[in-house]
């Protein structure tokens, strides 16, 4: 970590709480409202707020290692300054804007969201900039507001990232939300990025406590040319576990990359239940050992989770600690998730191979159970603890070859965020 990053984090950690307690020194001009992290003018339709959070992650890998232990770079570090997001968001009449960066810990990927939008009506708006492709609901949730320290492996492995593009969006009544757009790629900083990608998402809300969603994206991946003396990188999607272990290195792909997913959420009072299915399928035109076309490769998975705010707060996107069960102790949430993710190709002919140009891909998958505890002692602090139990379908490509699992890991997080 750079000195600049350390300084930025220090300022963030120290200034945030202090600012929250300060009283504005002077009364703002009439019509304006100044809160610790926001300024607004209701009559002018103007509002801007600082946003940001910092996360430090701790991991303990119980009784397992990768290979003979010399290859532990293949899983996440025991300690990691995970994120430092700083930005602002706001609106002015029909204009909405959002900008945030991670200046410290995501080298080469500092830019996160840079969004500018117009809201013509509730039914129609337009966004443009560097934004998330609207595919997976968990991916669309801020990393500060996910129920677990890690998003589901299926989401991390298969969902698209952020890219430059434009998005039309709106709501039809109270029962339907939609968004559809075109992007320059499907993850700007990824070496496996597809070309121009179209993405769309539809959410049905038959009642206030129930959502059904569906997502789709499509783009074309262009493989680097292969020839003697060159060593192109595979551009296929990789399978990575919640502990950072890559159990399925991407294979060579060329052609269409399609994703589709469905999801459902039940949310009432302090409880939520969430399920998501996602599949990504990629063509492998001319990617065989002798440049022949290969059967499509796919990654497919699902996750189901449940959360319960035992202190009684209402489950919303942003948890606001109340007094709840433990008076004054903040909000406490218990959570559990089960998920499966696997990769294979659509045929099953011939030698099953782990190679990156395999005609018949040796399937690889993972099943993970995650138990979680979150505690918000105040509006700007969150502690998380997760236990992950991972089991790999292919024992040969498990972290310890020959041992499919269970691999037990403890993940902890300290998060400071603007309330």
């Amino acid at each position, binding site marked *: 970590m750079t000195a600049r990053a350390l300084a930025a984090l220090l300022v963030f950690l120290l200034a945030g709480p202090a600012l929250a307690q300060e009283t504005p020194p002077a009364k703002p001009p009439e019509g304006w409202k100044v809160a610790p992290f926001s300024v607004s003018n209701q009559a002018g339709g103007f509002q801007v707020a600082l946003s940001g959070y910092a996360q430090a992650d701790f991991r303990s890998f119980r009784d397992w290692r*990768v*290979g*003979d232990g*010399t*290859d532990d770079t*293949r899983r996440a570090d025991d300690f990691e300054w995970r994120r430092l997001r700083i930005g602002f968001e706001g609106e002015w009449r029909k204009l909405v804007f959002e900008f945030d960066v991670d200046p410290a810990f995501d080298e080469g990927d500092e830019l996160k969201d840079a969004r500018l939008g117009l809201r013509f009506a509730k039914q129609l708006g337009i966004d443009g900039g560097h934004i998330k492709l609207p595919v997976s609901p968990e991916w669309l949730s801020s990393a500060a507001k996910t129920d677990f320290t890690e998003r589901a492996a299926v989401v991390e492995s298969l969902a698209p990232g952020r890219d430059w593009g434009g998005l039309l969006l709106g709501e039809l009544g109270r029962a339907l939300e939609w968004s559809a757009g075109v992007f320059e790629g499907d993850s700007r900083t990824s070496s496996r990025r597809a070309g121009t990608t179209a993405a769309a998402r539809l959410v049905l809300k038959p009642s206030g406590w129930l959502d059904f969603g569906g997502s789709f994206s499509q783009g074309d991946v262009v493989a680097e040319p292969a020839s*003697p*003396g060159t*060593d192109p990188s595979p551009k296929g999607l990789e399978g990575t576990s919640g502990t950072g272990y890559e159990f399925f290195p991407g294979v060579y792909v060329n052609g269409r990359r399609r994703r589709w997913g469905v999801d459902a959420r039940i949310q009432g009072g302090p409880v939520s239940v969430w399920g998501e299915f996602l599949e990504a399928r990629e063509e492998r035109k001319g990617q*065989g*050992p*002798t440049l*022949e076309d290969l059967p499509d490769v796919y990654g497919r998975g699902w996750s189901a989770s449940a959360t319960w705010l035992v202190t009684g707060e209402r489950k919303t996107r942003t948890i606001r600690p109340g007094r709840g069960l433990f008076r004054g102790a903040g909000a406490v949430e218990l959570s559990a998730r089960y998920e499966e993710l696997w990769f294979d190709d659509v045929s099953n002919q*011939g*030698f*099953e*191979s*782990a*190679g990156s*140009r*395999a*005609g*018949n891909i*040796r399937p690889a998958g993972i099943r993970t159970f995650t138990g979680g505890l979150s505690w918000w002692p105040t509006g700007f602090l969150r502690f998380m603890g997760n236990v992950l139990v991972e089991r790999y379908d292919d024992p*040969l*490509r498990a*972290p310890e*070859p*020959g041992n499919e699992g269970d691999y037990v890991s403890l993940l902890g997080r300290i998060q400071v965020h603007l309330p």
Partner: protein
Amino acid sequence: MKRLLSRFADAAARLAGLTAVCALAACGGGGGSGAPSDSSVTSTPVPGVPAGGAPIFDPTLLHDARIEIDPAAWKALRVNYLSNQYYAANFSVDGVAVAQVGIRSRGDGSRSEEKPGLKIDFNEFVPSQEYYGYKSLVIDNLTTDASMLRERLAFLVFEAMGIASPRNAHARLTVNGEYWGLVALVEPVSKPFLKSRLGEESGTLFDYEWREHYDFDWRGGNPDAYVPEPFQPETNESKPDVATGLVGFIQTMNEAPSANFVTTIGGWLDVDRFLGHVAVENALAEGDGILGDQGLNNFYLYEYGQKNRFVFIPWDKDNTFRSGSWPLYRNLDRNVLTARLTADPAKRAVYADAVVRATTNFVNPRWLTPQLETAYQQIRAAALADVRKPFSNGAFEAAVDGVRGVIAAREHDVNAQR
């Protein structure tokens, strides 16, 4: 029931001992099973062969090596034989299998589409996978030696002279059930080799990669002039000062004063042992080693950990036994190190004595010819059945005869030059 329980217990014990190695049947190849976790399995002693070692290098056996691979991948490996692209395969020797290894074409002049030389990396697709403790294995296609046994015999002599050399054994190679020819399984010079033969593995191993004529001449103090070409670090690759000792060694070779050169360079290597190494090269009438006609070639250089001390390890000895008549001091003046060492009369005598010792004790019909005949009988049928070798059966027989002749002549030839 008791038998069933016993079988279950055996299976459980085997499973517990398995790390990354599976029974052949489980890997889809059909056949026997075994767990090669013990790298100290002993073999029948053979003169010149170090005791112990993985059984796949046991030279008393003609081994059975099998590869199971996607036919398209095998075709691609052959068509693109100049490429180092890895393909996944299942591999076994004598029924002991390992799954999803990476195989690729290898070699310099020996690269072949018809009969590829192969490098097998056990951990290319499976993290940390090993086979008898090795992360890789070389399958020598024997296409540059019509006798197909020169390297095996040469390494016997190096070993007999006290120069640690890779183990080497012949095998019949079968690919997807089709006989692909006679090959040699060559022990990789890597950490297991260093540990078992040199006693430690913490130092830096350099693979000398011939790129152009080089004779240990001084290219200045910039490590980039030496690393990674022609000296490719095989261990400690990521250490920023990996070349410091090597640069110092080469600088000493070039700049140490002549008056005390032997003493000074003796701080960097065992001089007599090194002279023994090059003496064996000339005893074997080799033209492509440290004393090579085209400059240095075919060796590894190991720098012991924390010691600034080096040892040479021979590699690729298929260009030996070239002639029964071979100058005793051939090419000693070609590279800086041997030229300056043998400029010292005492060390020149040490060198000459080593050549005489090699030929008197080993490179002669009494010691080496029986080894040749044993190896010949072992490989002959497999060699004759090898339709992918780039020479005829007649050429094979003639080449073996030629080696016989060289062995018969070397002792007399050397003695005549003293």
